[in-house]
Structure formats: structure tokens, C-alpha cells
């Protein structure tokens, strides 16, 4: 029985990366390396106004004074920042009027990924700002959104067309001196998305971006900025798959969210970058700074993430709860397999009165992977009646993997109620036995139990994503298990 189970677990956890392919599109690349000239070149290439160049240079100069942090429970091979190409852009920048003009190869890539970029999109109700290696090539539904006054475009476009908004909000949540990779991103970010929801507008559709790394040795530095004005609502989806390759790639993105009074932002991520092969060779380094600020009273931000990919995942989507009665929520599933490493979690910083936060984190480790939850709940002195509940569970599949929990609770107000719970366990033999008894094979039982275990988080995803998330879970963990 136990042997059987081991065998099945091995099968289940041995699934190969199914989205490994590589599209050959002509690229325009900068020389490798990073210095002030490169930063200037990026800015000039993108025809940016003076203030952006200043912003980048300030960040770059600050970055040079910083050292790569080493406190995470991760084993990171040394990164040579001079061996990275900081800017790559598809050469033929298509001026798109209709789908026919999209590069057929590019279109095929999207089809393989299952992005409904064609007319079916209308039915699916998803507007996509597709990003291939750093530059937006196609934005759909702009008109529909424009009618409502919603701005959804690439950040380079926003810098040109809405410099006031950019000036006001870019770097306001994650300042350039915030952290090592944040500073690097601020200096060299190539593109990303910008969303602005005006007062009182409820965004009629889910906004989504597909990220895709698509050139050898190209670190991708995305920058996303979402501003939700008073009484607005938006749900934003971010998902990614990357082609299989050997060399490690660095991905250091920044996501900033600003929620004004009574605004609600829902940010969902399905992350499935290339995790490296079974021997732990290759794979993406995913070092992302994600932070939201609930600026206005009664605002709400919700992070949902399903992390199955990347060789190393290192990110803490955070909420700064500044407005009174504001709410931050974090739902996460992190799955690691083979030699993957993850150190992820959240920070909930309670500043306003009557602020609430909820953390639900589910870790699944298999193979020889290391999976850590690291989270901070901070209640400042003035945050009266703050409330937090955290639940961090780890599930271990296999006896060579690790599951770790590092919560930090810093409470400086006596009216705060903060609770943290964590458990670590493996799938019980009695659970498997129960399923077997009822006619389920052990294989199915493992799949069922893992799916049930993460359900609480998957349920928070928008429909379109929930389906894909479940598929990804199966690929990264379950192989043939249905």
C-alpha cells in the first residue's frame, strides 16, 4: 500500500512542463550589461519625457549602492547583472487594425497558450493586453473601455499620453529605494500595463495580461500600475507560461495598486513560468514586488495567486491598509516540485482604524523542493480595532521536500485581534483508505485531496482563471491524475 502510494506520488509529481516551446520572432536587442548609458538608452528608445529619465536614473544610482538581500530561505545562484539584456523588442512593431495583421507566429503562440485573442474574445468577455517580451503588441477592447472612461494600456503609452497620472502614482506605492529588485526594475523596466478606473465606474470585464518571456537571456522587467478611483471596481488577471530553456532567467516585476475611497481591486495571478527540469537545471527566477495601498476609507484589495512555476519564487504581495475600515485579503496556493524553491507570503500593514485582513496560504511541496511561507502582520499604534486572521497550511508529498513557515506578528495596539494558525502534514493514510474503500484509486484520491486542500483559494479566482489554475495544478503536480 505504502509502496503503491510512493509510486503513484512519484508519477504524479513527475509531470513534465507542458508549455515548453519557443517562438522564433525577430528581436531587437540591446547589448548585454547594465550601466547608466543603458538606462538612458532605454528611456530614449521609448521616447520618454524628462521626468521618467530622472526617475530611472535615481533608481539606478540607488540600486548601485544596494546589496542583494540574502535573508530569504532560498538558495540563489549568483546573478551576473551584466550578463543580462535589459531590453528586447519585437522588430516589426505591428500597427494593428484587425487580427489579420497580427504576426501569424505570434498568433500561434497565443493559440497554444489558449488566449482567445480573436473574435471569440467578445463572448469570453476578456480584454487582453498581451505582452511578448516587454512591449505591448496588441490591446483589445480599448474602445469599449474608453466609453466608460477606463484607461487600459501599456505603461509606455500611458507615460506618453497620461504623464500626470504616471507622475502622481508611479513609484508611490513601491518607491525606487524600496528594495534591491524594486530599484532595478524602476531603473530598467521596459513595459507593462496601466489601468485607471475613474470615479464610480465598475469595470464591466476582467482585465488581463499575458506575460511571456520570449528571448534568450532577456530579463523581463514588467511594471504594472493600477489606480482605482473612488467607488470603482476592477478585477485584474495576470497569468504567464514561458518556453522551456536551459539558462536561468531573471524576472523582476513591480505591481502597484492604489485603491481610493470605497474602491475595490481584485488582482489574480496564475504563475507558471518554466520551473527548470527534473534535475533543477534552468528555470525562471521570479523576484516580484507587489504592493497595494488602500488609500481611501472602506477600500478593499484582494490578492489571489496560484504559483506553480519558476525555479525560484520570491514575492510578497502586500497591502498597506491606510484608509479607515479598509480590507486586505490574500489567498495563495504555492506548489513546488523537483528542485523548485519558493519563499512567498504577504504583508498586511494596518495603519487605519478598523482595518481588517485575511490571509489564507496553502503550500504544497513535492520532490526535492523547498516551500516557505513568510508573512508579516503589522498593527501600528494608531490602528485601532484592527483584525487579522491568518491560516497557513503546508502539505508534504514526498519525504525529501521541505515546508516552512515564518510568520512575523508585530502588534503595537492593544485593541488589535490577531490570530495565526499553521499546520504541516502529509496526506493521511486513513484519508487514502477512505477513498479507496469507496472505489477511488489511490491516484484519484491524491488528486482529489490536493484539489480539496487548495479549493478555498481556487474559489477566489475568477471563472476563466479557476479552470486554468486547476489545469496548472494538475500539470505541476498530478501528471496523469485527473
Amino acid at each position, binding site marked *: 500500500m505504502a509502496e503503491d502510494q510512493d509510486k503513484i506520488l512519484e508519477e504524479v509529481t513527475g509531470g513534465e512542463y507542458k508549455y515548453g516551446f519557443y517562438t522564433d520572432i525577430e528581436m531587437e536587442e540591446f547589448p548585454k550589461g547594465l550601466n547608466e548609458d543603458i538606462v538612458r538608452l532605454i528611456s530614449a528608445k521609448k521616447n520618454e519625457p524628462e521626468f521618467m529619465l530622472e526617475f530611472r536614473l535615481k533608481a539606478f544610482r540607488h540600486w548601485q549602492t544596494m546589496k542583494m538581500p540574502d535573508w530569504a530561505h532560498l538558495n540563489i545562484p549568483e546573478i551576473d547583472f551584466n550578463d543580462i539584456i535589459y531590453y528586447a523588442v519585437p522588430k516589426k512593431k505591428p500597427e494593428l487594425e484587425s487580427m489579420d495583421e497580427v504576426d501569424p507566429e505570434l498568433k500561434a503562440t497565443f493559440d497554444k497558450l489558449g488566449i482567445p485573442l480573436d473574435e471569440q474574445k467578445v463572448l469570453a468577455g476578456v480584454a487582453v493586453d498581451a505582452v511578448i517580451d516587454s512591449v505591448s503588441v496588441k490591446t483589445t477592447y480599448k474602445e469599449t473601455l474608453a466609453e466608460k472612461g477606463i484607461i487600459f494600456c501599456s505603461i509606455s503609452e500611458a507615460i506618453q499620453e497620461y504623464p500626470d497620472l504616471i507622475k502622481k502614482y508611479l513609484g508611490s506605492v513601491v518607491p525606487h529605494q524600496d528594495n534591491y529588485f524594486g530599484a532595478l526594475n524602476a531603473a530598467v523596466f521596459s513595459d507593462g500595463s496601466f489601468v485607471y478606473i475613474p470615479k464610480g465606474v465598475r469595470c464591466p470585464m476582467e482585465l488581463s495580461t499575458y506575460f511571456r518571456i520570449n528571448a534568450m537571456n532577456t530579463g523581463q522587467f514588467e511594471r504594472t500600475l493600477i489606480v482605482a478611483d473612488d467607488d470603482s471596481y476592477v478585477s485584474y488577471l495576470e497569468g504567464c507560461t514561458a518556453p522551456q530553456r536551459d539558462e536561468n532567467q531573471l524576472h523582476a516585476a513591480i505591481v502597484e495598486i492604489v485603491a481610493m475611497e470605497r474602491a475595490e481591486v481584485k488582482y489574480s495571478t496564475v504563475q507558471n513560468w518554466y520551473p527548470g527540469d527534473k534535475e533543477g537545471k534552468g528555470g525562471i527566477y521570479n523576484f516580484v514586488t507587489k504592493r497595494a495601498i488602500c488609500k481611501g476609507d472602506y477600500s478593499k484589495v484582494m490578492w489571489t495567486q496560484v504559483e506553480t512555476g519558476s525555479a525560484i519564487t520570491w514575492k510578497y504581495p502586500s497591502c498597506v491598509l491606510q484608509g479607515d475600515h479598509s480590507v486586505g485579503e490574500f489567498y495563495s496556493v504555492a506548489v513546488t516540485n523537483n528542485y523548485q524553491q519558493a519563499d512567498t507570503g504577504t504583508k498586511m500593514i494596518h495603519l487605519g482604524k478598523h482595518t481588517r485582513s485575511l490571509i489564507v496560504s496553502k503550500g504544497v511541496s513535492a520532490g526535492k523542493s523547498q516551500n516557505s511561507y513568510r508573512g508579516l502582520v503589522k498593527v501600528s499604534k494608531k490602528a485601532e480595532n484592527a483584525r487579522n486572521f491568518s491560516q497557513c497550511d503546508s502539505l508534504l508529498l514526498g*519525504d525529501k521536500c521541505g515546508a516552512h513557515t515564518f510568520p512575523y506578528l508585530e502588534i503595537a495596539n492593544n485593541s488589535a485581534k490577531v490570530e495565526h494558525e499553521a499546520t504541516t502534514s502529509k496526506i493521511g493514510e486513513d484519508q487514502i483508505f477512505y477513498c479507496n474503500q469507496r472505489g477511488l484509486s489511490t491516484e484519484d484520491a491524491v488528486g482529489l485531496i490536493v484539489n480539496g486542500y487548495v479549493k478555498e483559494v481556487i474559489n477566489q479566482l475568477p471563472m476563466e482563471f479557476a479552470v486554468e489554475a486547476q489545469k496548472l495544478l494538475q500539470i505541476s503536480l498530478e501528471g496523469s491524475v485527473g
Partner: protein
Amino acid sequence: MNKTCRIINLQEEYSQLFKENISLLENGAPEQMNVLRAAAFDSFISKGIPSNKVEEYKYTNLQPYFKGTFDVAFSSDGAINNNSEKFHCGVPNLDTYNVFMINGWFAQQDELSTLPKGVIIGSIRDKAKEHPEIFEKYYNTNAPVDSDAMVAMNTAFAQDGAFVYIPKGVVVDKPIQLVNIMTGENDRLIFQRNLVIVEENAQVKMMLCDHTISPQKFVINNLTEVFANENSIFDAYNVQNQHNLTTQVSGMFVHQKKHSNILTNNLTLHSGVTRNNIRVTMDDERCESHVYGLYLSDKNQHVDNFTFIDHAKPNCESFELFKGVMDDSASGAFTGRVLVRPDAQQTNAYQSNNNLLLTENAKINSKPQLEIYADDVKCSHGATVGQLDDEAMFYLRARGINENEGRILLMFAFAYEVIEKIRVEPLKENIRSLVEKRFRGEFDKCDSCVVCGQQGSSVSCL
């Protein structure tokens, strides 16, 4: 012999203190202690006194407390003066074998003729020389100097402390109480190093009490290494009762062998700045360990409990419970690291940290951590921060209990969960009444201080 040192620049002046007095440090100390000094010192200097930049000391910056002008005793006559002999300590109704230390130096012990045969209790300096085979086998084998700067510092500077050896199969009938009295005319820097060995099938319960009896500033770095061999049972109750100017870094490093059962309970009732480093290594199968703590802080006190439970082998169980009540501007911290090493299957580890914040200036930082490298384990941890339950309070008030009394009742009920774990009946009773008094605010009055039993003394013990 006393020397006065002025510490402003930590690194330099501690270097100087060590290098200038190395011959005094080594004089009369057992060889094994001296052999380790240089390496320990290097490790200490390379790490320095921990600041809050060091992850393990994130919530306690020790640097400012280790600055100042201190007396350091380099021999027992420097530590022990006439004044200290007047002191008599004893928890009422508690029959113990008493061992006294003054400023970390072994001073006297009760007539111990009633001790079971083979039990060795005495100064680590003397006993190490009398029983080198025991001493050398164990000394510093469970407190690696590179693990912690304060361990390294203690290993470099410590000259005396208690040595306790319980031979095979001996069950010590009464608790052994190690009392360390801190006194002096000037501020003092104190080091103390204890070594406790509990052989196979032996049982012993110990109390470690630290008391300040003069109002000077004391900075103490003590370290107790415990070896619990097969089938042994060991209890340690660390009663910390010092005035607000005291800084204490207290290390308790326990090493467990097969089927051993240990319990440590840190009762921090009154202190200035307290940092407890508790480390339990379960180096064999089927060990059981209980690690508990209660901290009651007010004024500007700071208590930091750092625990590290190392499940190195399969089939072990650990239970951890720390509870704190923070009043006034007190701040507290808790770190509970549980490590389950690869192949330490069938591990059960439970950990819980609960805190009550009574005022808006009180602060608590809690950092429970699980690090797990084996799959067949049951580990859980929980941490809570909150206030007294309004509904429970309402229930009491509806039954005619006034608010103040209700508060005390609820706080006491909260703390009792830790007191309950004490396995020495008379001590449990004493701590119970002590804690209740503490909540009633009577604790500051010296005449009600039953811990040091200093009735009528002119010097406040707190």
C-alpha cells in the same frame, strides 16, 4: 579581583577587556575552558553584540545595554563581598538543595550530606578539575560558539558557575535550587556558566533563580548546558526576578538522548531587558520535550523569548507554550523555531504563543517558525494577540464581580495555563500566588516578595 571597564565602542573595548585580562581569565580556570576561549572570542568579535539587524535579534537590540562602565570580577573575592553573605533566599514551604552564587561566582551551598550518593554539585572551576573525564566529555559540546554571539561571549569570558552531575539511576528527591545574587557598589557585568549532566535513568528538578539585591545596573550573560541522557527526566524552572536596570541574556541549551523527558519553564516575572535563548536538541529517538514560558511585563520592560527546537531524530515529541501579559509600555517578543530535520519522521511538534496587550503603549512581536524537511510529521503552531474577552468580562460583571476583580481573574486564568505545567507542587503553589499578587499590583512592595524572602530588608529586591 575587580576591574572596571568603560565600554563605549563595543567591538574595541570588549577586545581590549579580553586581551588585557586573558591571564586573569585563565587563572585557576579548568584547562578545557581556557582552550576554547581564543576561538570563542574570535567568533564573538566577528559577530559583535547583536543589534536588531541580526535576524535572530530582530526585536531586541542588545548593543545599548552592553555599553557603560562596569565592574568585572576576575576572581571570586572580587565578586563576593561581605554584604552578600547576609542574604538568605528560599521560597517558603519549598524544601530544596540550595546552591548560592554571587555575581556568577560560586559562593556557598547548604550542607548537602543528604544528597544521594554520587551526586556532584559545586563550582564548575573546582569540580572540573576533580572530574576532568566528565567535564571534558560534555563542556561546550552542545553550545557551539558560532551559533550565537552571546554564547561565544560567554564561552570567552565565563570563569565560574555551577556544576551538577546526577549519576546513573539516581532520583534526586528535592529540587536543586541555583540562586544567583547580583549585588555590588557599581554597575556590573556578569558571566555565569553552568553545566548539568543527568545520566541514564536519573531524575532531577532544578530551579534557577536570579535576583538583584542592590539597585545598580547589572548586565548578565549566563549559559546553562544540560545533557539529558537515556531515560532521564530533567526539569528546569527559571525564575527571573530583577529590577528594571537589569539586562539578562540567559541561555539554556539542552541536549537529549533516547527516551529522555525534559521540561523548561521560563517565568519572567519582573525584569529590565530579558532575552532567553532556549535551545533543545533531540538527538535520539523517542525524546519528549516541554518548553514553556510566562512573561509578565510592565513599565518599560522588554522580554524576548527565543526558542529553537531541533528535531534531529525520528519519533520525538515537543510541546511549546509561551504566554505573555504586557502592561504599560512593555514590549515583548517571541520566536519559536521548530526544525524537523530530513528523516526525522513521525515527529509531533506543537507550539503556541498567546499574548494579552493591556494598554495602548504595549507592544508584542511574535515570530513562530516551522522548518520542516520530513513528510510524516504533525506540526502546528499558533500565535494570537488580543485583549481580555468582553463577553467573559460581562459574564463576570453580571454575577456581581467588579471590573477590576474581573480583570484580575481573567488575566490570572490566562496565565495559569503555563503555571499549571510546573511539575513541582510547592513551586506551582508559590508561583501561583506570586502571579496573582503581581496582577494585583502588590508585587512591587518588597515585603510581599516571597521569591527572595527578604522580609524587612532595606534594599528592594526588585
